[in-house]
């Protein structure tokens, strides 16, 4: 019980840091909203597909799930920043000198990161609703989408942990998030992969983001539902990523703080 109280106290601190920091809000919420508006209202109507030009509403319907995952990926840079700042200022050392169970310290960063990513995702989702996006899915599928988001947030948070613990400063700590953004841009998140150059298309179709985005799209819109095979591939990527990055985070953290 004490550990849970400590976990919530530390989690609340980090979520509050994010919500009261203008830079974080601009990067993680305002920027994805701006990109959504830009892509939908400026580029969306000009995107040609095999079946002709897309309408802005059709592009919104297609791209919103991708933008939601993009929002979470942008949030991961701030996960790194918070962990790295606590590491470099000595706050983690202060916490380690207190009578707190060690898992609580890193656990609070992970929990706060996932909560903040989901809050940011919800904000962009509501903007999408205001722009005319409508969910066409069963309640179960809709909840499945949030479950997938949670798992996606957890996996990329755990990916952020070792980078942020090892980085010399927060600028380099957040650099890994560019890899995530690049993977999302070169996937089916914002454009169908069919029209991509051959080599890019092969990469896009076989990297983890495409099945994850396609599954997210299908969970929000039954008309875009994907095959069970694609959903399983997405689940495998997410679960495997969570396990691998979770173990890696634990190893780095243990070496830095518990066995030094």
């Amino acid at each position, binding site marked *: 019980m*004490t550990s849970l*109280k*400590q976990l919530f*106290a*530390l989690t609340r*601190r980090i979520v*509050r*840091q994010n919500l*009261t*920091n203008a830079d974080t809000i601009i990067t993680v919420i305002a920027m994805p909203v701006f990109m959504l508006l830009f892509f939908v209202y400026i580029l969306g109507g000009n995107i040609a597909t095999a079946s002709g030009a897309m309408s802005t509403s059709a592009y919104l319907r297609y791209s919103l799930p991708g933008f939601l995952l993009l929002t979470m990926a942008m949030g991961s840079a701030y996960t790194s920043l918070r962990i790295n700042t606590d590491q470099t*200022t*000595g*706050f983690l*050392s*202060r*916490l*380690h*000198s*207190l*009578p*707190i169970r060690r898992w609580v310290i890193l656990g609070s960063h992970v929990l706060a990161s996932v909560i903040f990513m989901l809050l940011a995702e919800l904000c962009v989702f509501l903007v999408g609703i205001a722009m005319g996006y409508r969910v066409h899915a069963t309640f179960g599928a809709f909840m499945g989408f949030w479950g997938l988001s949670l798992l996606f947030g957890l996996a990329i948070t755990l990916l952020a942990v070792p980078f942020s613990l090892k980085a010399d400063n927060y600028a380099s700590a957040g650099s890994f998030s560019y890899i995530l953004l690049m993977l999302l841009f070169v996937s089916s998140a914002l454009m169908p992969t069919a029209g991509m150059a051959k080599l890019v298309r092969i990469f896009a179709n076989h990297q983890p983001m495409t099945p994850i985005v396609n599954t997210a799209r299908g969970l929000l819109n039954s008309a875009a539902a994907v095959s069970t095979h694609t959903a399983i591939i997405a689940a495998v990527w997410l679960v495997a990523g969570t396990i691998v990055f979770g173990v890696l985070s634990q190893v780095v953290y243990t070496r830095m*703080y518990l*066995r*030094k």
Partner: protein
Amino acid sequence: MQAIEVHNVQKSFGKLAVLKGVTLSADRGEIFTLLGENGAGKSTLINILATLSRADAGTVRILGLDPQSKGKQVREQISLNAQSMTLDEEFSGADNLRLIAQLRGIPNANAAIDNLAQRLGMTTFLQRKVKTYSGGMKRRLDIAMSLLGDPELIFLDEPTTGVDPKNRLELWQIIRELRDAGKTVFLTTQYLDEADALSDHIAFIAGGRIVKVGTPAQIKQRVRETYTASVAPVQVADAVQSLTAAGLDFAQHDTRFTFDHTVAARGLQTLLNSNVEVTAYQRDEADLESIFLSVTDQEAHHDVA
């Protein structure tokens, strides 16, 4: 039972040996100061004592407990104030303190925070955001965060670095009050006047070894005693001639002649026998600075050898 017992502690990072067999002990209720230059191993030792790091070899007891096997019990009774301040600048001072109170599970946290704020003279700025604080206010808040929960043993790692003279003196007073309240304070500093003014015991650390330990008075006594004789300005040449003729070692600075205590009496007698007018003769007062320079110099020679 002593507050801190350290025996032959060694610690290396890769091939770099930072602590090379440190032994020291601190009594309960005293201010024990570890004095050393940057890179001497002060923070490494404090991290081991505060359960943040493990020694490669040697034994450590904190309030009678092994910090590795009884880490949680140790952490319940200690607090660490690190060199760098760990404050949330966007939050108020009260928010920062409240977080620590929650983590330590302090009942009636608000009353404890108010009480501490009054003791440390922080009531006027406690509700303001920390980013508006001066350096001294921030350091005071940082130390207050270390005092919540009433720990028995407080590690202060260079607490006055970067603090202006007025706030420095006020922090000294806070540290003295902690001792007066029966707490043990383990202090590291680079400032010799601070060590001299505050400490019950001082240990000099240089090159990963404790090279001198004792009360400030004991340390000053243990250094090589010297005596200085002042002579009339017109007789300086006579004095040099007579002392040289007698085969005595001395150091001359203007009209002053300094002797090691082993030859001081003979030096004085030689001057008097040569009819040199000795205007003053006194034992030299050792200061910590000269001792510090002396021991760090010896350690440098030791490492070279």
